[in-house]
């Protein structure tokens, strides 16, 4: 339990520092809000259209592929840790595991989903 206590403390301190800084800035910085200042900054020109602009589909694809490979990595870490002790068969198992997923990557590549356009 104690090692996670340190992590918790790191998180707490990690939060205190920025909060402190921003708090100090918030206390000592002047606050004179006026409508022009609070407009969104668009290189000085009028903001055009709704800021909730139509979203590009590509983002979802990349997030999706990342998710799949992320989970794969999760699976591979324990395998990697124990690879030294285990024999060749573990290596082959891992390779099969990776190949199957690389096949997924090849599929998306072939379908042309990875292009940004």
């Amino acid at each position, binding site marked *: 339990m104690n090692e996670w206590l340190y992590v918790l403390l790191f998180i707490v301190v990690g939060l205190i520092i920025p909060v402190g800084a921003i708090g100090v800035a918030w206390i000592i910085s002047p606050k004179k809000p006026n409508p022009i200042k609070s407009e969104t900054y668009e290189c000085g020109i009028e903001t055009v259209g709704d800021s909730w602009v139509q979203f590009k589909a590509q983002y*979802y694809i990349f997030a*999706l592929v990342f*998710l799949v490979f992320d989970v794969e990595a999760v699976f591979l870490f324990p395998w990697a840790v124990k690879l030294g002790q285990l024999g060749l068969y573990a290596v082959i198992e891992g390779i099969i595991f990776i190949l199957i997923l690389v096949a997924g990557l090849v599929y998306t590549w072939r379908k042309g989903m990875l292009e940004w356009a």
Partner: protein
Amino acid sequence: MVPLSWYLILSAGLFSIGLFGVLTRRNAVAILLGVELMLNSVNVNLAAFWRYGDVTQMAGQVFAIIVFAVAAAEVAVGLALVISVYRKRNTVIADDIDLMKW
């Protein structure tokens, strides 16, 4: 010491909140959120039983990881479906998606 039942009640609570989300939210994505919660509650249960059972038996943790994979797959496909429904019918409200009836 924290008895096992506390963890089980925690996961039960998480499960029922997820259930409520699934049953009542109109937006399809919100339903998927509910499902995520339910899956998490299952994971908590698994981890608890692993910790409180024989620790050397890794079944609990292996199952938890498999549940991670399943949850990931489920989210991917679920959201893909919702998005394709949205692109075709311009709606994500669950009640509007009711073609599958007699």
